């Protein structure tokens, strides 16, 4: 391989059919980790090396048979594990096929996939072998080889091993775009019950290392511009939904606390797939709770883009989200006294709260109303979902019945009879008709 005229020794490994077999096992083993996003970093190719990272939205290169976005090569270094987490297929007490890929094999597959435009980069996780640091060290080697030997500028997401040392987390952060430490179970007692080797310290400590790393790095870069960036796309985490008795209120409260950490970019929710049916600490779900997962993603979206507080979405009276309707409509129906909202006068933040009006339409409305009085015809063209919004707005034409005059229960029934149940439940491709 040539890079800018320099002959770089390509670690020549013979890729064989055995790699295919192991890839099968290790891709299968990594598949439940939901975060696939490759967003958050812009790194242009500087003319040396291969690859760039597209900012803002990540690029999905394919969609698997379960409809989920494939953006990164999501794989485990090994699925051998010394731990025994109840919710995990790879726990040591399970009798499943095990495999390991070498550092150079992962590096080579990543490079070859990337060059063929199959992927945006690598998402690497691992079972714990020997001890957390031993495992973490091998993951860091993959990232370092990609960056330093192959001049790889694509996306790297490393899942930090619970309990890994600060030194290794810091090293990993120098090569990774994003790092994640999964919370998995929101309540510490439940976590200890299901994953005896883990506790909140093993999760929140590495999170804090990453945060400190990012903040110190910002400081350093202010003084010295050429200090390389540390985890520029921040960190993410995941919670498993439905494996423990935690309510949506607990989950959202924790999400909201996590988002208040300056480096936390995404919280993912993963409907529990009953992989270890024999373990009676876990509910025997026939189906993963997909609708609940979908509602949590919508709630998360409301907190990040619509200015909702977690307590507005779920509280002690309503600790769990209504599975029949989206949480924004749910909130509006609990607050009929605030409606109707006058789209020609109300503030942007209020318009954003109307079911049927999304971020994009809200912005179009506040711009367009400078030119003329908006009618429902205009709103329709702008993209407002009128069959929802009509119960919550007024534009001073034919007054249609508002939720404040009708009962919230009536409005809910009206809307439900018109809407089909949501079929999609992926984080990135939610249909937001609100």
């Amino acid at each position, binding site marked *: 391989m*040539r*890079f*800018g005229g320099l002959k770089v020794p390509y670690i020549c490994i013979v*890729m064989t059919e055995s*790699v*295919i077999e192991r*890839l*099968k096992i290790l*891709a*299968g083993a*990594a*598949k*439940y980790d939901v975060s696939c996003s490759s967003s958050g970093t812009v790194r*242009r*190719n500087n*003319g*040396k*090396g*291969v*690859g*760039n990272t*597209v900012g803002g939205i990540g*690029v*999905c*290169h*394919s*969609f*698997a*048979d*379960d*409809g*989920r*976005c*494939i953006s990164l*090569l999501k*794989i485990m270094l090994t699925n051998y594990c010394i731990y025994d987490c109840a919710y995990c297929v790879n726990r040591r007490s399970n009798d499943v096929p095990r495999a390991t890929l070498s550092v150079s094999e992962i590096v080579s*597959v990543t490079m*070859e*996939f990337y*060059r*063929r*435009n*199959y992927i945006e980069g690598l998402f690497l996780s691992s079972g714990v072998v020997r001890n957390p640091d031993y495992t973490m060290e091998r993951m860091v080697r993959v990232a370092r080889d990609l960056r330093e030997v192959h001049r790889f500028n694509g996306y790297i997401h490393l899942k930090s091993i619970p309990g890994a040392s600060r030194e290794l987390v810091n090293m990993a952060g120098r090569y990774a775009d994003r790092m994640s430490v999964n919370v998995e179970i929101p309540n510490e007692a439940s976590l200890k019950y299901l994953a005896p080797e883990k506790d909140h310290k093993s999760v929140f400590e590495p999170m804090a290392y990453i945060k400190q790393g990012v903040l110190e790095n910002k400081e350093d870069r202010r003084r010295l511009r050429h200090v390389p960036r540390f985890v520029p796309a921040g960190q993410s985490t995941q919670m498993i939904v439905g494996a423990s008795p935690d309510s949506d209120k607990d989950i959202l409260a924790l999400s909201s606390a996590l988002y208040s950490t300056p480096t936390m970019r995404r919280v993912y929710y993963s409907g529990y*797939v009953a992989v270890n049916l024999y373990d009676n600490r876990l509910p025997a779900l026939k*189906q*993963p709770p997909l609708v609940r997962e979908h509602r949590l993603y919508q709630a998360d979206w409301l907190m990040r883009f619509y200015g909702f507080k977690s307590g507005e979405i779920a509280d002690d009276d309503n600790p769990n989200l209504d599975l029949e309707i989206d949480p924004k409509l749910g909130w509006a129906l609990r607050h009929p006294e605030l409606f109707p909202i006058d789209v020609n006068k109300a503030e942007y933040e209020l318009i954003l709260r109307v079911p049927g009006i999304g971020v994009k339409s809200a912005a179009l409305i506040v*711009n*367009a109303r*400078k*030119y*003329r009085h*908006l009618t429902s015809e*205009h709103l329709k*063209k*702008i993209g407002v979902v009128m069959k929802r919004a009509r119960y919550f707005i007024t534009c001073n034409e034919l007054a249609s019945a508002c939720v404040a005059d009708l009962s919230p229960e009536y409005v809910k029934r009206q809307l439900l009879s018109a809407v089909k149940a949501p*079929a*999609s*439940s*992926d984080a990135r*491709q939610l249909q937001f008709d609100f």
Partner: protein
Amino acid sequence: MTVFRFDGSFDGLLTGVFLAYSAKKRPECVVAPGGEMPLFSSDVVDVVTDVSKSERVWNALLRKVSRGAASAMAISFLCEDNAFYTSLFRFICRVFDSAENVESDFSDADLLAILENSRRVKGEAHRVVQFMRFQKAADDTYFGIMEPRYDVMHMAVEHFRDRFSDGKFIIYDRRRDYGYYYDGRRLERMRLSSDRSHMTTGILPDDMADADEQLFQKLWRTYFKYTAIPERINPRKQRQDMPVRFWKYLTEKNGL
């Protein structure tokens, strides 16, 4: 009814705008080759494309609206929708007729059509970035071929040049039969002779492909299959986000 007939190019359309002002004549309808002529076209004007005029209109446009709005108009033009050209033409005239900037008057149906079409065209360019699949040829050139709905290769090629700047690649639009070749330094527009088999199937024949190409394709197909969660199979969503019209050239889907 006045009708402007133009050659189907963006320069042609802008020349038409020039004419509307210089000849003080407003068409009710602008028609590109292949477009339908209105039934009662009493006054048909043939617009002769003139780049010096279209450039003047473009520069004037840039003085009236933001660069983003102007580029949305240019991009929306690529949607190859004959009925839309009249909307675009009318809105450009409205820009010049108005004293204030009208680019954020989102109650104007023409403007909304422009935004919608530019979104569609950009979406197609993004799909080229998403779904282009390269095969490595024996001479280290990475070869990728697609049939995008709109003419967007020129919008996607910069992305590939930035990403793969240390190697050689070809991206090819088979529907319009042209593409770009990058040799590691320069980028050029090119056309392949259509008698090669990989031009129709999109698959490099074995004697042209790199020795490891088959292995990596197999690895990718394996990965694609095993990364899906069987409990959550959702073909409807898969087709929605990755329309079937792209599958022909997708390594993981072209069913080998």
